[in-house]
């Protein structure tokens, strides 16, 4: 989504990169389709079949069918996690549990084997928390300050440098794995949460910078110019003028980074496969390397445990989550 070296942005407004030449073109973080119902967009649809009730019924039927399709895996995961193994064998995946049992959840949290260890997901859940929180905090703060510089304090070559930074959003991370493994080894932080935090900060900052740059570019120049005439310096302008209006973009950025880092598997499996592995890696080990009787109910409970934090964020702040997705989707 590069427009030119001069103006590079993922433009989430209507989901398209469309920030042409001028700096003031809002490459804003706002997603029209996802505004609250009641805004213009909610009534803007063009009715395909205005009065045909049969046609409308078909539209609703199709939409409902799709909703069932998307909800089905969640339903199957939930019901399976509350079944006993006999119950699973007796019924099929759509049947409700004959007796709702929490045993699989207890086992998934505290006893299930992920490789050699049999302490469930709990330790790895905390690993993920210990990895995600600092990585999100550091990369967001760096992104805010960087975004402030490349939008408000542009200097000769700063646009080129920003473009250079953005390339980091597009590379397949496979191309940095081998050197990174060497460097983490040299620094003595291979297979540690600290190492993973470093990796996520390094490769997350390009995205956070992009978020904040696209947000600050919509702030009127006059605001900053007036403050400079009043003698306000670099940090004063940032702390007193920009930070107070940066709430929404912080939320978008934090949610985006949280989801990305919590859900990451590649860095986790390569750089921390032992004690320090994050929950996604532990889940994969639980599901794919366990021996003996396959306990699908435990697998499903563990999968839900791994998904809960991001699902919770989505439920609470879905609007911001979607903004982040459209703005930073390139990371995939």
């Amino acid at each position, binding site marked *: 989504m590069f427009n030119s070296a001069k103006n590079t942005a993922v433009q989430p407004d*209507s989901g*398209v990169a469309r920030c042409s030449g001028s700096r003031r073109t809002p490459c804003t973080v706002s997603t029209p*389709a996802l505004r609250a119902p009641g805004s213009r967009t909610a009534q803007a649809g063009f*009715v395909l079949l205005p009065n045909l009730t049969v046609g409308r019924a078909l*539209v609703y039927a199709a939409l409902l069918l799709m909703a069932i399709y998307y909800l089905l895996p969640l339903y199957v995961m939930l019901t399976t996690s509350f079944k006993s193994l006999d119950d699973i064998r007796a019924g*099929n995946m759509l049947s409700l549990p004959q007796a709702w049992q929490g045993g699989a959840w207890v086992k998934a949290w505290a006893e299930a084997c992920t490789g050699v260890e049999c302490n469930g997901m709990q330790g790895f859940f905390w690993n993920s928390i210990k990895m995600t929180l600092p990585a999100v905090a550091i990369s967001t703060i760096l992104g805010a300050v960087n975004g402030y510089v490349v939008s408000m304090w542009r200097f000769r070559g700063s646009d080129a440098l920003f473009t250079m930074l953005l390339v980091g959003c597009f590379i397949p991370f496979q191309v940095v794995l081998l050197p990174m493994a060497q460097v983490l080894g040299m620094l003595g932080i291979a297979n540690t949460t600290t190492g993973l935090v470093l990796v996520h900060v390094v490769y997350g900052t390009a995205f956070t910078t992009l978020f904040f740059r696209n947000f600050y570019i919509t702030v009127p120049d006059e605001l900053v110019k007036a403050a400079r005439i009043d003698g306000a310096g670099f940090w004063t302008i940032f702390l007193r003028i920009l930070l107070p209006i940066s709430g929404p973009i912080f939320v978008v950025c934090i949610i985006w980074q949280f989801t990305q880092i919590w859900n990451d598997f590649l860095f986790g499996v390569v750089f921390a496969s032992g004690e320090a592995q994050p929950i996604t890696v532990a889940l994969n080990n639980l599901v794919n390397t366990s021996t003996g009787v396959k306990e699908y109910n435990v*697998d499903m409970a563990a999968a839900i445990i791994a998904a809960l934090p991001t699902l919770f964020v989505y439920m609470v702040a879905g609007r911001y989550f979607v903004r982040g997705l459209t703005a930073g989707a390139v990371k995939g």
Partner: protein
Amino acid sequence: MSASPSQGRLSALADRWLPKLVLSPTLAASLIFVYGFIAWTGWLSFTESRLMPRYDWAGLLQYQALFENERWWTAAANLGIFGSLFILFCLLVGLLMAVLLDQKIRAEGALRTIYLYPMALSFVVTGTAWKWMLNPDMGLQKVMNDLGFANFTFDWLVNPDMSIYTVVIAGVWQSSGFVMALFLAGLRGIDDSIIKAAQVDGASLPTIYRRILIPSLRPVFFSVLLILSHIAIKSFDLVMALTGGGPGTSSDVPAIFMYQFAFTRGQLGQGAASAMMMLFTIVAVLVPLMYMETRSAKRV
């Protein structure tokens, strides 16, 4: 804020170098961890490195070995199959849902929430869920058998000829709602007056969609292609969790190939060469798409 002249000069000086100073750690990190590491991986791909990295030049040895490796071609072919089907179905499902949702639907917000929640999940979770649902004995097959279709079999997950298609199923489930969101945003961004004019001219609404609205989604279309192909080329976790690349190597993809050669088989050179091939693929796919996207965005 009154300042003496000398203080003023000092702060003006500070304002000149502070921005550069603030940006420099990130730039340094980018130079080392992105550009430096790509060069490093590139260098490794021209050496004979196996278990340990070695840095003596060995020419195109690793690439030659890679291209003679049948498993690499399986992975590349699978990426082709997965990538094209994944993109095709995400586009079709996403566009269809966007158009349907654009019909003044009640509870649109709730439906959107449902369509999009898979994007909040990790691919590992998605893979785990679908691995269970597509389980040949106890998943979908059993449901159909219980419903009376006694001969219904669904063994794609353990069938080497079909395993890659299970990745498509799970991938489309995870990403199509997101494509819907992008298309819907595009539809809502179109100027009403164009549609009004077409209506005055007597165009029916299906025609308006086919001839006016969907064609004007071209820039969104390129964005979506860009995002989906990026997801497809990098896909790793979904395949790992769903099939592990199996049965055998039947659902192997380049990302898994790279991971296994570099980190579990002690073939650093092969891993580096395959990583470089992935980078080239991304560049080869994304650069033309970005170019077309920029052009179509300017024209609209």
